[in-house]
């Protein structure tokens, strides 16, 4: 029997007494590769932040691996921020960004130990960015930037990997590469939870989807969940679903005569 890695029990979250979602119960099984989709302002980023522990619920309980949030081991949850929120002018190299993943350890000295450098080199090798370790983070391609932050998240061998909009701000090829890489990581046993605006990327790549708008509208495999009814309830507008040579395609439905 698969046990849930993430459990939200009757959780209510809001900012300054303005509720974003209330009485939300949701569980995501260990080993799942799930994407949260929903319109802007639906609360999907707040849901992600609740799972990450950066937003505290007014009520309810959040459990990661059966333990209350905050009692998990350091590095158990890996996080990749939205690339658009990164300060690209900050003076750090790719190696220094990856090293930050190890700052949860107790080492006080500013410079990395030999073991830390070895771990950085190893994860960079695995993700195919070992040639750009000494480069400034601004001076590498979008795909390499995404991999650098993935390496930071993965260096502590997390059970859960959380990504905020990993498909935004990158070209289609990079998007495909990133999702393919996430598939590989998921096959290695890492549970993955991400948010995205790209319904077609979700339909093509993700095995599990959660339609969210101030609550869970529906969840399951994209083929079952991406119906015009569910999408209409999620987005509040008409969306058309096509099957093109076995691929699910979602588009805005045109209205009028």
């Amino acid at each position, binding site marked *: 029997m698969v046990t849930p890695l993430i459990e939200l029990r009757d959780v209510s979250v809001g*900012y*300054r007494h303005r509720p974003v979602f209330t009485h939300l119960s949701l569980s995501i099984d260990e080993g799942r590769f799930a994407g949260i989709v929903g319109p802007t302002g639906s609360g999907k980023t707040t849901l992600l932040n609740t799972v*990450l*522990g*950066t937003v505290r619920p007014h009520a309810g309980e959040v459990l990661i691996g059966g333990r209350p949030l905050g009692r998990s081991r*350091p*590095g158990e*949850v890996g*996080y990749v*921020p939205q690339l658009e*929120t*990164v*300060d690209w002018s*900050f*003076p*750090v*190299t790719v190696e*220094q*960004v990856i090293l*930050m*993943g190890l*700052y*949860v350890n107790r*080492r*006080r000295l*500013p410079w990395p130990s030999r073991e830390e450098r070895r771990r950085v080199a190893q994860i960079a090798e695995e993700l195919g960015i070992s040639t*750009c370790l000494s*480069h*400034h983070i601004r*001076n*590498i*391609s979008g*795909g*390499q930037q995404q991999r650098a932050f993935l390496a930071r998240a993965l260096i502590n061998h997390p059970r859960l990997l*959380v990504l905020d909009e990993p498909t935004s701000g990158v070209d289609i090829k990079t998007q495909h590469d990133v999702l393919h890489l996430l598939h590989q990581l998921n096959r290695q046993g890492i549970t993955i939870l991400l948010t995205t605006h790209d319904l077609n990327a979700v339909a093509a790549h993700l095995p599990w989807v959660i339609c969210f708008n101030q609550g869970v509208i529906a969840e399951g495999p994209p083929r079952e969940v991406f119906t015009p009814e569910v999408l209409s309830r999620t987005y509040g507008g008409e969306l058309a679903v096509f099957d093109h040579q076995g691929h699910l395609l979602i588009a805005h439905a045109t209205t009028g005569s």
Partner: protein
Amino acid sequence: MLDTLLEPFAFEFFRNGLWAALMVGALCGMIGVFIVLRGMSYIGHGLSHAAFGGAVLGYTLNVNFYLGAVIVAFVAALLIHQLSKDGKIKSDAAIGIVTTAIFALGVALISRVRQFTQSFEAALFGNILGVTTTDLWVIAAVLTVAAVGLLLFYRPLLFSTFDRDAAAVFGIPTERLQMGFSLVLALAIIASMNIVGVTMIAAALIIPASTARLLSDSFSAMLIISTLLGALLGVSGLYASYHFDAASGATIVLFGAAAFLVALIYTRIRERLTMHEHLHYHGDVAHAHPHTHDGEHAHTHDGPLTPAKGRTGGTTALADAKYEKLP
């Protein structure tokens, strides 16, 4: 000639001032890196004004001048952080509201009482030549606290300065770290207040760090350059102020502005001299455009095929393809 150059060193007040300028310059240079990179350049300006208000308040309440300034500056830093935390009120607005209000309180108290034995002019404009041995010990203590704190918390400070939200997810205690930094910043401002003056502290904090940023793309190098530059500017500015017979704080800041300008011109000239154009690769992407090779634009010359032109790739093809623009 040599006698004229060495003349100021004969005076104890000048030697004390020199030590103070050296330590305050290094202290502000070190802390300024975090302030500049956090995009909170105005915090120094604001907190120094809050500290001034706190000093006047403390004096009025018969509390120690420095103690009042430290407490009020620290509380102001926390208030600014709390107000701007959720992003609704931006940090620059929070700094403006909190610190100007406290400064105004100080000014109101001065104008109401009008009979202060303590001179607040030194705090406002700096009086580096009135530095006592006690002042030197206070500055040395603050510099030591800041340097040791930086050494011990270098890693979490770097992470939370780069990306506070991600640092919190990774288990860095960002709130406590912010409080600790605010306290050290408040102490640094109080230690610097009588040296460079409330009106000049912001520049002492920002200029060395901004100059270092122009010269380096590495955080640790920026930290070292900014600290050394701050110390150098403090000493050279003070020395020049003696010969120019000008206000020491203002001269130090003017030297800083000149150093920033020189660094800016240097980086622009370097860019122009090293700027060139040829075919190069970023992974699978091949293109040609003006760029430099100083780490600002990493690329390879020995890339994959360039099917657009039917070339075979590699360095031989690159030699032929020089100055050729690809779509």
